[in-house]
């Protein structure tokens, strides 16, 4: 997880939220699986050059959400199993969809036009890869 998480200080999203979302993405993508250890608050704070309280807040949110679990004396671990991973993936997809719908609306496109643009992009992506 170290090295793959990054924060953007200029973003309007609070840094703890960026860390929280970064961990959620790693869980969604399967890079972090149940039982994997995550860096200590201190190590991650040093890596990202952010205040340890900021990392602690992100971890606390993730623990409350059931994605992480603290084992006394051992450290912090990923708790989310396949079910949690599926939920995170769906949440990410919903986020992306909302952003796309917002963009299309802002550009003045109708729903049908947005849907066909998505359809085209989907096929091109597949074709490109094959």
């Amino acid at each position: 997880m170290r090295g793959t998480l990054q924060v953007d200080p200029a973003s309007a999203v609070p840094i703890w939220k960026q860390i929280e979302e970064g961990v959620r993405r790693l869980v969604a993508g399967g890079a972090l699986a149940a039982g994997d250890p995550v860096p200590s608050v201190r190590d991650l704070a040093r890596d990202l050059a952010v205040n340890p309280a900021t990392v602690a807040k992100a971890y606390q949110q993730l623990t409350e959400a059931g994605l992480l679990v603290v084992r006394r004396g051992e450290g912090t671990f990923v708790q989310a199993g396949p079910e949690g991973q599926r939920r995170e993936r769906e949440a990410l997809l919903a986020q992306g969809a909302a952003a796309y719908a917002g963009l299309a609306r802002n550009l003045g496109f109708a729903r049908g036009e947005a849907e066909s643009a998505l359809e085209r992009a989907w096929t091109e992506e597949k074709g490109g890869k094959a």
Partner: protein
Amino acid sequence: MSAIACERLTLGYGRREVVVEAGLEVPAGGFLALLGRNGAGKSTLVRGLLGLLPPIAGSARILGLDPWKDRAALMAKVGVVPETPDVPPAMTLADASAFCGRLRGTWDAAGVLERLDRMGVDARKPFGDLSRGQRTQGALALALGGSPEVLVLDDPTQGLDPVARRAFFREVLGDLAERGTTVLMATHDLEGVETLADRVAVLHEGRVLVQAPLEDLKARFRRLNAPAQADPAAFAPFGPVHLRGNGLGLEGTLAAFDADAWARAGLDPDWARGADLETIFTAMVEGGAE
């Protein structure tokens, strides 16, 4: 209890009031960045908080102690990194550490040497022969030698190159994580302090213009980049500062952003992007926001 607090604190030299009715509050374990232009009164406020200057009016408390009256007791619990490190040029850091150890009840001499070693600073070299960055690192190692509950730094990274600055901030960070030290850093280094500070106070012409959690400021401020056809009047409710045309459109800073009101007004979310601390600071000081 707040680790650092002052209320209506007025400080100055002779009849000249430099800091007027300053109010600050830093909870234990907090990190306050004290920002302000040159001459805003940052160093004077730091001196007042460290008991080097008597208050003209108002009061200050650090760890519950009055810095002017209880300076000796307080200094056992406070580490200081001054603007210009004050170790005698002929003295080595190892000797300076041993000297501090004799003055103070608790002193981690081994810890100081270990820290210096990690930072790549030669503890056996005369202080005057060290580079500016090494002198600052050395001052930090000495400030942390007494395991302080509060660390006060007066523009420590001034004149340091980016690599030395980064190393310095990492070292401060390590200590924060280990001990939960409360930090007050007067600084011009907005970029360096941006991810570390959880609170920001802006001093302008001797007065505390704003004091708030950094997160609140980030929520309130936005960089505006709108296309030319956008109506400038639409931005009026969002505290526009420095609004100007740039050929492609309209740019500036919004000091009173509200995402819900923005959406209700039908404005494009992409026009208002997150603002970095430098943008926020400039808008506050020049725009007189607040």
